[in-house]
């Protein structure tokens, strides 16, 4: 997965930033275009250009949950956008029509905002992830961001960093002093689905091997069965994933496992059809959810969550399993309890977060 852009497009205001210097040093023979401010130029957008810009917005934000479904209180640290792993269901296709990877170069603003944010609520447990608008480790060999992030979080008494990935790019993590404040997470799907719907990602075996290595280096792990996808033999497919998972890692070091069935904004549908005409994920039965996103019909969601949670609990009964963006009635029917009865989902996960 050696990423090598054809061209770098860099805004001059971030030219002296450490991230830019690192990338320029690593990609010395890649041509660079310097611009004052990146314009919307569709001709530069073929997905093979790496853009580094000055980000004008907030680097840290709450995960955009909705009031209709139970949200876990996650926070997003936004270091860049886009991804080239090409997952058929990926929402980024709709969020960011520009296929170029874009990094935010003004990291001094990011660190300032992050520190202020953590200091502003020191009693709160902060679960912060970088994998919402891109894959957390996709460009790490190039940006080496984990070398800064992991030690930073190690020094925070009230925060954990979750690195969510579908890659195996964990080498830099080995030597870092994480003190249990970084959780490395993989999303999991059956091998056949990875091949058809997540074609450019690491295989299931490779992901689990990377997870095993991280566990060896003392990191706690997380796994996200998200999106769970229905296909004709999904029960066996997901059973095999749980079997492989149970052979690869020690369940005692798993901070949490989330379950979430496929959901997407209606506007993503024609994009999936156009970008991935062979994908079969849209052929299942969907209904518009309370948040306007398309979801599997509730009976199917309950069946999938119930099935997966039973498999996982058979492996290890104390696993912290939660549903991502589901309503209380689905929680009760599939997992047998409503998170509100246990103080709320956010508190449950906060209790799991710190070492």
């Amino acid at each position, binding site marked *: 997965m050696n990423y090598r852009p054809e061209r770098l497009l860099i805004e001059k205001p971030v030219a002296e930033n450490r991230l830019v210097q690192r990338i320029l040093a690593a990609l010395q023979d890649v041509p660079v275009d310097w611009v004052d401010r990146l314009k919307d130029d569709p001709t530069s957008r073929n997905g093979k250009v790496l853009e580094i810009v000055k980000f004008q917005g907030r680097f840290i934000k709450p995960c955009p949950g909705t009031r209709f479904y139970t949200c876990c209180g996650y926070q997003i640290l936004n270091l860049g956008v886009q991804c080239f792993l090409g997952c058929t269901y990926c929402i980024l296709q709709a969020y960011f029509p520009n296929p170029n990877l874009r990094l935010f170069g003004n990291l001094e603003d990011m660190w300032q905002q992050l520190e202020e944010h953590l200091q502003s609520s020191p009693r709160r447990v902060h679960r912060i992830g970088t994998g919402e608008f891109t894959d957390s480790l996709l460009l790490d060999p190039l940006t080496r961001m984990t070398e800064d992030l992991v030690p930073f979080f190690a020094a925070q008494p009230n925060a954990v960093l979750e690195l969510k990935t579908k890659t195996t790019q964990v080498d830099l993590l080995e030597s870092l002093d994480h003190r249990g404040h970084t959780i490395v997470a993989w999303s999991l799907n059956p091998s056949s689905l990875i091949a058809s719907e997540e074609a450019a990602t690491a295989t299931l075996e490779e992901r689990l091997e990377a997870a095993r290595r991280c566990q060896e280096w003392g990191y706690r792990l997380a796994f996200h069965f998200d999106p769970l996808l229905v296909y004709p033999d999904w029960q066996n497919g997901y059973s095999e994933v749980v079997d492989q998972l149970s052979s690869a890692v020690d369940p005692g070091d798993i901070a949490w496992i989330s379950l979430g069935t496929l959901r997407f904004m209606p506007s993503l549908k024609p994009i999936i059809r156009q970008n991935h005409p062979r994908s079969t994920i849209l052929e299942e039965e969907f209904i*518009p959810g309370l948040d306007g996103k398309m979801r599997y019909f509730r009976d199917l969601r309950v069946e999938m969550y119930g099935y997966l949670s039973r498999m996982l609990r058979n492996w290890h009964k104390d696993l912290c399993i939660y549903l991502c963006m589901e309503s209380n009635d689905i929680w009760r029917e599939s997992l047998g309890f409503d998170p509100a009865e246990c103080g709320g989902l956010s508190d449950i996960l906060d209790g799991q977060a710190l070492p």
Partner: protein
Amino acid sequence: MPTTEFGSIQFAEVDWNDAVCLITYGPLPDKLFLSIKAVGLLQIPLLQRKENGLLRIICGSRRLAVCRELGLQPLLCQILPDSLPLHTCLRMAIYDNLAHRRLNPVEKSLALTKMADHMDKSEVIEEFMSPLDLEPSVVLLERYEKLAQLEPFVLDALASGRLNERVAFALTPLEQTDRLALFQLFEELPFSVSVEEELVEMVVEIGRRQGIGPAEVINLREIRKVRAADTKPARQRAQDIRRHLQALRSPRLTARKERFAKEVRDLKLPAGVRLVPPPHFEGPRWNLECTFESGDELAARLRHLTKLADRRKFQRIMKSLC
């Protein structure tokens, strides 16, 4: 305006097959016949002299066609020199039409497609989409470009307004047989534009699920049966077909609706009381509607309803899996 000459032409001089600058599409209007018959040709057509000596029609193709049918020659016309670039002539044709009428979707498609042969897409979008009452966007431009490639039966329906362009866009990516099958269904039964769009999507997705083509979905025995039931009003048959396709597309939801209907019947709710599930059974919000005509009637119904929540049959309805 480039230099033009006026001259009398014979119809034999016109290259009737040269459509490079023509964007007009549709039958000749009866009122144009009437007008030319009554008062003659009031607006002079514009043509271009070609290298081979024949004349290319730029503006006034319908007027010329009517005059030809009426045998009104020689005919006074404006003639452009052959040195004038094609795109200049095409632009004249488009603006001439834009100035005095609203173009139909096929004509918009022809105008955009033909100009795109001479200009960058971005220039076409900027200059022509707003004047054609279209939102300037590359996606919409590409949709209109594809329209022009559709079969004459679809184009005729589009030009006459029997088929909406949104539905035509949905039909564009289909194979010809599939497009024809859906088109015939829409010609036969009255659906709204949004329902036609929905049906195209449903039929394609049902076909994908079942491993058959959209035309085969339309040709399923149950659909054929509904279409053939011509003792029923067309609107009723259209609704039946939509319901039937929805059941094929969403079998779980349909089964749940049927089960719900049966379970509610078994509950034997008092008259005037209706249990309404959340839309698509999604979310926790159920409704119980109660209508009444007197205080006594309300009291009687409420007495009945207070016991409802404890009944196993009622609790079963609220669960998704049985």
